């Protein structure tokens, strides 16, 4: 008989008007791996944050080992031997790994050497590869994650919560992580892993609990379920995507990228010899594990990245001339008559200004128009109105700061503005992330419309089903290299998945 580690009863948490969790009930046992499955925004992370003391539930109870527990701070959580590994690592960049690991502990005398030894011992026990004296800001993502896990183990946690631990890892690293997690399960620890990737759920966990829009849907044993059942639980009813896809017409090269190299601030190559062509009248999808260089690639084309090598050629459909975009600022690119629209991943941090209203956000692209020193607000106001109407943006009015709109409406405003410039190239990074189904479809339709108008659309996505149904061609990127380009009409998820996990060298052939 397995021992009950965590039991949640009727947990509710509200942020402002957003209900993040509503009457959630959940149980996790020792010696098992429980997956919490749900789409983006289904309240998985909020729920786990309440167990680890970051948030406090508005209503409901948390029981640990069968007794009611009041967890008001992470310290309380440690006392219950609960350790959480957050998706965004909570590490002090200026500290060493060891300093981070012992941070906040109270174990008598401060002795960094003794702690370092203990860390080495833990690393050996579970097979981690970690240098305790290395500073965090010099570490790779996977090293940082290792620090996080060791940190929790060092504190003697026997309930481990991992929030999307695989999102940033390579397949090899994922395998290594899973092996470690299984070893911990055999140690009798209770492991909860938050994810939205089905194959991980099936290969790793013993049981799966599903959340949908903040509500608890149910729990099933992994051995007794299937991918389709889980999907149905996750999204409510089984949906086939059925995205319209027209045949590309008048295909001609619009954007030709050759041998791009780009290094980040610490000198690590984030784009390595990237070459491809984006054609007018077609949607080019870009698939890859998050953080493989997608952001840098789009920013490079938009003139926001310093490039070490390569060229970006734009074929101007009006004049027939070819322009080199590399080394130009966004403004210079504009002045060349290149109509490049870009929907960046970070909507409120880059694409829009959260504290400004919709009208003023429309002006971001157009405020330079006109000769005088004053801005002209009439046209942007009209544009704001028409976007609110045609894209059905839910907002109290055009003067509401966009940060107060919901994710989907923010995205409508952003995409609406970018499309209104009647672009010849439209780049969109994760345009449906965090959006509900209806908003997502609206965005797909908008992209398709642009394609029909002869725009070269570049779509960076994470959901492979969407990529396959929407895009004409799909380019796969792995660790900053192009690992392959496939035809969207006759490819499979498996084929793309395989390319995603390839390292660059193999893919080059």
């Amino acid at each position, binding site marked *: 008989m397995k021992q009950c580690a965590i039991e949640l009863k009727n947990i509710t948490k509200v942020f402002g008007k957003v209900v993040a969790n509503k009457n959630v009930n959940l149980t996790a046992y020792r010696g098992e791996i429980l997956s919490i499955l749900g789409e983006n925004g289904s309240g998985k992370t909020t729920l786990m944050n309440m167990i680890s003391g970051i948030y406090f539930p508005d209503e409901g109870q948390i029981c640990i080992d069968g007794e009611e527990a009041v967890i008001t701070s992470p310290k309380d959580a440690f006392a219950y031997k609960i350790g959480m590994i957050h998706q965004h690592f909570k590490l002090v960049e200026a500290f060493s790994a060891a300093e981070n690991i012992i941070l906040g502990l109270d174990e008598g005398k401060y002795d960094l050497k003794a702690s370092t030894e203990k860390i080495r011992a833990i690393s050996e026990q579970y097979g981690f590869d970690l240098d305790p004296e290395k500073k965090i800001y010099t570490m790779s993502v996977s090293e940082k994650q290792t620090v996080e896990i060791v940190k929790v183990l060092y504190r003697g946690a026997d309930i481990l919560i991992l929030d999307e631990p695989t999102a940033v890892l390579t397949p090899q690293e994922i395998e290594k992580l899973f092996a470690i997690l299984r070893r911990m399960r055999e140690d009798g620890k209770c492991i909860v892993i938050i994810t939205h990737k089905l194959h991980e759920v099936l290969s790793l966990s013993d049981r799966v609990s599903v959340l949908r829009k903040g509500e608890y849907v149910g729990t099933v044993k992994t051995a007794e379920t299937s991918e389709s059942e889980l999907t149905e639980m996750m999204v409510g009813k089984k949906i086939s995507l059925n995205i319209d896809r027209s045949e590309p017409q008048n295909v001609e090269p619009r954007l030709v990228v050759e041998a791009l190299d780009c290094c980040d601030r610490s000198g690590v190559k984030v784009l390595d010899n990237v070459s491809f062509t984006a054609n007018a009248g077609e949607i080019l999808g870009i698939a890859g594990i998050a953080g493989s260089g997608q952001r840098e690639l789009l920013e490079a084309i938009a003139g926001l990245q310093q490039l070490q090598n390569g060229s970006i050629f734009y074929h101007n459909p009006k004049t027939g001339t070819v322009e080199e975009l590399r080394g130009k600022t966004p403004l210079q690119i504009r002045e060349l008559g290149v109509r490049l629209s*870009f929907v960046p991943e970070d909507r409120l941090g*880059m694409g829009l*200004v959260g504290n400004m209203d919709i009208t003023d956000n429309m002006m971001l692209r157009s405020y330079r128009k006109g000769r005088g020193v004053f801005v002209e607000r009439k046209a942007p106001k009209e544009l704001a109105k028409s976007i609110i109407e045609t894209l059905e943006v839910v907002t109290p009015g055009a003067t509401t700061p966009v940060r107060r709109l919901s994710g989907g409406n923010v995205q409508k405003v952003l995409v609406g503005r970018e499309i209104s410039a009647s672009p010849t190239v439209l780049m969109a990074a994760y345009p449906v992330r965090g959006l509900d189904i209806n908003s997502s479809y609206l965005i797909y339709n908008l992209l398709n419309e642009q394609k029909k108008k002869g725009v070269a659309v570049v779509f960076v996505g994470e959901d492979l089903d969407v990529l396959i149904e929407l895009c004409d061609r799909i380019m796969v990127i792995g660790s900053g290299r192009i690992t392959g380009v496939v035809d969207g009409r006759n490819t499979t998820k498996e084929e793309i998945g395989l390319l995603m996990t390839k390292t660059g060298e193999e893919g080059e052939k």
Partner: protein
Amino acid sequence: MKDKAVAKKKHEPLFHVVKRDDLAWWQVWLIRGFTIVLGVLLVIFFSMMITGKSFDKTFDIMFRGVFGRLMKGSTTMLWKYLQEIAILLSLALALTPAFKMKFWNCGAEGQALMGGLASIMCMIELGDRLSYPVLICVIAITSILAGAIWGLIPAIFKALFGTNETLFTLMMNYIATQIIAYYVYIKGGGSNVINPVEAGNFPKVGNNDYFVNIVVVAAITLIMYIYLRSSKQGYEISVVGESQNTARYIGINVKKVIIRTMVISGALCGVTGMLLVAGKDHSINVNSVGGQGFTAILISWLGQFNPFIMAIMTAIVVFLRIGVAKVADTALLNSSFSEIMVGLVILMLVGCEFFVRYSIKFKRKKEAKA
């Protein structure tokens, strides 16, 4: 079983703080207005405590300390009051574009001093060589330039290397102070005083010394309002202030905007220096600005970057400053009492922003375990 539940309950927080949805503008100003009224009442209360006078009497002294015998037709004090407002407000206005860009210009003091230095130098060195209108023009140009340069230096380093501007501009203040001390020593013949200079003074209008200053600042207020609200540069400033990433994304040259805005900010501080020297004191010393550069920071922040609200805030602060000083004065107490009171009211206003942005949620009484 029951005991345990009770014992555990102690740990539950009584209340917790949550971020509010945005309040309507009138609700926000209700909170702020209430705080101001409360603050003024507290100030009067404290004044009553130290002087032992009644409420009516205290308020009367304050009011007459600021406005003089306005009822009997004397406007001398009123003009003086407006003059004080003009100087403080013009500094606050000068800082506002920089603050809106989230550039902490704490160097208004130094920038104004440098502007004032340029003015006095022109007045002394060129006073008898140039005709009056030319002299005034030269004073204006050099003062603006001097302030602008003093603002430009930290801006360049901020733009190029991200050098911390708060500390940089603070240090620049004291360098300016020492330059003034140096110049005053030379020209004052070791007496630390420069006698008022006749040449290059702003003209009297009617019988009024300060009219020009007040009009200039009123004009700057209006222009600044329009500049921030409706000009392309003002728009760029807001975008850079809100998010440098967005600014880069739409092709704004962030470095250029930082430098340009700080030149404007410094130049306007230079104007204040000119108003102080050519329009008011006709002399200069290390205390000419008298710490108002810091008060101006507070005003600009309290005014939420809106020049007209800043004008109201300035009027309140100057009212307290003069009025309370008068109260302290009549009780033969040191006038620094007014600084304490101004500090108090500003701290209250700073604190009240909390209630604009957050609300306190008390834990709902949970019914016994179901």
